[in-house]
């Protein structure tokens, strides 16, 4: 196969990073990104982009750890380079605090982030309602900058991007040899995956530039993540809610919960409300599939269902997806040479 044509559906952090990995590992491939939304209107743009993993019940821990480690290492190198500010990648330190001591005091990712250790008594005094805490330094991917930087890298390698709503993967079989499905929550409709469901998240993005440290309540519902220009305050976790409209009651709830962790937030200005639907699943769907219709075959690589942890594992799953694309190409080349016999 001379120049395999690969269509990547979806232009959030998963779609763009997967397209980039494919372009990097398969220089002869012709890669195109198709999506109905691009930054700043993707689910990824709503997220704070903090590298703090979410645990997938259906994926072995060592696999999740590998994905996180690859992602962290990749971003760490960018944060240390001259491109850091353009890419929106920066280090941030802070605390994860618990009202009740967690069962697992050492999460699987504690040796991947920097300087992980339990909080001292003096540090905990700042959080009178919390009894236990962990301090560490991690990375944050600010969006839109990170997605725009990925788009720039893609254009530089010759990858084209098109705004287009793909309603059915079969639409693509005539023009493309392989389809990569990074449609996120869109996969529910696109491939009819009933195991994929939204967990609605509302956040506030506020102007509070004196907040330099992150604070996260160990339950995961309340968090304060300082970005380059705005601080993301969160959040909500509403299972099976498809509504993208901001909820004023949730806004007040988020603001009050965050102010109780960080009282100075009362002085925050210019509060913007955003809503995103986490594409949630027991495990990330990261696998090959060959679709078949009327004698025609269409190789598909799925890479979706990252839920609340997309940023934390994006590079690791993108590399795995690119590897699966390589397997698809090998399979196509194998079958085409067999056809010659």
């Amino acid at each position, binding site marked *: 196969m001379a120049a395999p044509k690969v269509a990547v559906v979806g232009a959030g952090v998963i779609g763009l990073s997967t397209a980039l990995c494919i372009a990097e590992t398969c220089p002869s491939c012709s890669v195109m990104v198709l999506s109905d939304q691009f930054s700043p209107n993707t689910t990824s743009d709503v997220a704070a982009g903090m590298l703090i993993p979410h645990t997938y019940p259906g994926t072995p821990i060592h696999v999740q750890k590998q994905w996180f480690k690859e992602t962290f290492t990749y971003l760490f190198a960018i*944060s*240390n*380079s*001259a*491109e*850091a*500010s*353009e890419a*929106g990648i*920066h*280090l*941030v*330190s*802070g605390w994860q605090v618990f009202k009740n001591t967690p069962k697992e005091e050492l999460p699987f990712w504690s040796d991947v982030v*920097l*300087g992980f*250790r339990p*909080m*001292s008594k*003096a*540090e905990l005094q*700042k959080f009178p309602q919390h009894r236990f805490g962990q*301090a560490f*330094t991690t990375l944050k991917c*600010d969006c839109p900058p990170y997605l725009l930087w990925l788009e720039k890298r893609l254009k530089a390698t010759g990858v084209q991007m098109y705004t287009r709503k793909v309603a059915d993967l079969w639409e693509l079989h005539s023009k493309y040899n392989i389809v990569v499905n990074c449609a996120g929550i869109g996969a529910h409709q696109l491939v009819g995956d009933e195991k994929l469901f939204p967990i609605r998240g509302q956040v506030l993005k506020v102007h509070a*530039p*004196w*907040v*330099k*440290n992150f604070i996260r309540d160990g339950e995961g519902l309340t968090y304060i993540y*300082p970005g*380059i*220009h705005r601080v993301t305050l969160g959040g909500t976790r509403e299972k099976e809610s498809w509504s993208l409209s901001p909820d004023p009651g949730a806004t007040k709830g988020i603001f009050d919960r965050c102010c109780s962790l960080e*009282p*100075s937030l*009362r*002085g925050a200005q210019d509060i913007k409300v955003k809503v995103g639907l986490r594409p949630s699943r027991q495990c990330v769907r990261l696998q090959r599939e060959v679709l078949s219709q009327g004698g025609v075959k269409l190789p598909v690589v799925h890479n979706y269902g990252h839920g609340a942890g997309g940023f934390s594992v994006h590079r690791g799953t993108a590399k795995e997806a690119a590897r699966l694309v390589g397997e698809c190409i090998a399979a196509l080349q194998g079958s085409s040479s067999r056809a010659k016999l």
Partner: protein
Amino acid sequence: MRVAIIGAGVIGLSTALCIHEQYHSLVPSLEMEVYADRYTPHTTSDGAAGLWQPYLSDHGNLQETLWNKETFDYLLGHLGSPAAKEMGLFLISGYNLFTQPVPDPSWKNIVLGFRNLTPKELELFPGYSYGWFNTALMLECRSYLPWLTNRLMQRGVKFFHKKVESFQEVSGDGMDVVINCTGVRAGELQPDPELQPGRGQVIKVLAPWVKHFIITHDIESGIYNSPYIIPGSEFTVLGGIYQHGNWNEENSAQDHKTIWENCCRLLPALQKAKIVQEWSGLRPARPWVRLERETVRHEHFQAEVIHNYGHGGFGITIHWGCAMAAARLFGSILQEKKLASPPQPRL
């Protein structure tokens, strides 16, 4: 009782507030006046980034270490209050970097979460093989000094824009106590060969992605002669200049180059940062802080002077501990004056 404070930097204004808070109810007749030739934003304090951090070694000066601790604890207590934002007060974490192992500083248990850097963290800083991480406080004077000024004005303290040439100039008018917070120019009021300028220069840039302070140390060059990067609420301060004995308040192109090149080497992403301002100032350097009473006599006049100057590059770090010590000295003056006042008439 009339009190004159000379100097309106962080030392002058905080000493004024501390004394007024503690004594105005005990001394109903307390009248306080502030005299200064420079007010915010033109004081030495205004140029400082505002990071609470003492020098690496206290040289056995435990009293200064205690004043540093008192300041940190006082500020930490204000963190959760509604005033914090207006004061320019917030928490910040960051790195101190060395080219060789060094002993832990006197302030390791004052700051929060003090620890050594891990090998992976040191990968961020090529050329540095040892370091510390801790969480400390920022107190930005361009907010703090106006906040202090407002608190003082609310209390009826009067302000005068004037260059005071001598102690008798302010004390001749029935002033009972003069508090000398004149910083680097204290020698103009009373010669002090121990007081020297420690000239510094800084570049203020827009680099909002920088969330940590990074302070490098070169044991041979001495304090502040090695690059540092300190992110504020609006600008990030780049520095690394300390010139003992240099009175020049003009910006130097050579120093600009030194700061810019060294800081960009430390954090390559700074190359893209937009430069907003350049500033030079004179740290009031002294082997130790001059914080003591003196009865100044000249011909027919006599005044009780409390000296509170010579805080070098750690004025913000030590200010409240010194203000409280000055207030204690003020208290002792009050005691003496009560003893010296005429006895009550017998009924």
